[in-house]
């Protein structure tokens, strides 16, 4: 059973919106809300809010052209992308030797994996990611690169990380992983981020 709802603001059929999840995070997740804690899509959004929330506090807000901060619109677009990407979507089948057993991985889980793989590369922040196709899939990832990071090396590292993660966790045939660098950013502490 998928958890899509007709309300676009509702995360994963939980009855809670992105803003409410942000409030829940700010409150230290107390009191515990079962509808959020037991919902995979809410948990994916909360993890992203934690990760990017701490990162956004590190970003330098400067408008000098030689030291560009991460564009505010890019960052707000990032959260919109995450909200879309965590939707469970299709169930992608995994091989099972038992005819009475069906094993699947959701498209949302795969998109989250792609995002995590890309973000694991030093100096890279994933903006959007998408998967198209059924048997042979094409993955598209847009990234922002830390100022001073060699762009082609960062893009290649993201491509390799995404491909390796998909190979490990899915049975998809990956035709290509297309990486687009669409922004650069700086970080207050000189590059490290948690």
């Amino acid at each position, binding site marked *: 059973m998928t958890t899509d709802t007709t309300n676009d603001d509702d995360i994963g059929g939980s009855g809670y919106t992105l803003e409410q999840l942000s409030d829940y995070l700010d409150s230290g997740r107390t009191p515990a809300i079962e509808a959020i804690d037991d*919902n995979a899509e809410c948990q994916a959004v909360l993890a992203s809010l934690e990760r990017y929330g701490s990162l956004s506090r590190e970003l330098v807000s400067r408008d000098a052209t030689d030291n560009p901060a991460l564009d505010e619109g890019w960052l707000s677009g990032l959260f919109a992308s995450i909200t879309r990407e965590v939707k469970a979507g299709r169930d992608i089948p*995994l091989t099972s030797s038992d005819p*009475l*057993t*069906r094993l699947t*991985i*959701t498209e949302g889980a795969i998109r989250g994996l792609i995002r995590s793989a890309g973000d694991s590369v030093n100096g890279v922040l994933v903006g959007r990611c998408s998967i198209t196709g059924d048997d042979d899939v094409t993955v598209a990832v847009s990234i922002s690169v830390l100022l001073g990071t060699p762009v082609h090396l960062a893009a290649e590292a993201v491509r390799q990380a995404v491909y390796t993660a998909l190979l490990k966790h899915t049975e998809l045939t990956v035709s290509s992983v297309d990486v687009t660098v669409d922004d650069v950013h700086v970080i207050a502490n000189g590059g490290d981020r948690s």
Partner: protein
Amino acid sequence: MSESLDSLVLGLPGVVNLFSTEPAIARSARELVSGERALVEVTGPADAAPERIVASVGVDANAQAPVTAAGVAAAIRATLPPDASTEIVVRISRLTV
């Protein structure tokens, strides 16, 4: 049975979360009617083997998702009578890095 399956699944290698298989409002309604609070969904007659068991799990990215899913299904199958024709569905809903 569902609640014991919750514990079983959560104790398996690679499994870090267990999620609801249905929207919150449907789950709340089910809890009100049956008092059932388990996350692994078991459907079928109470006096026979279940017709269907569905588990929605979060997997540690250090484990391999397909292997973990197969392990979950095998562990659930092992709790059933050998001749049970129960359909088991294991859905990986999140990979945690």
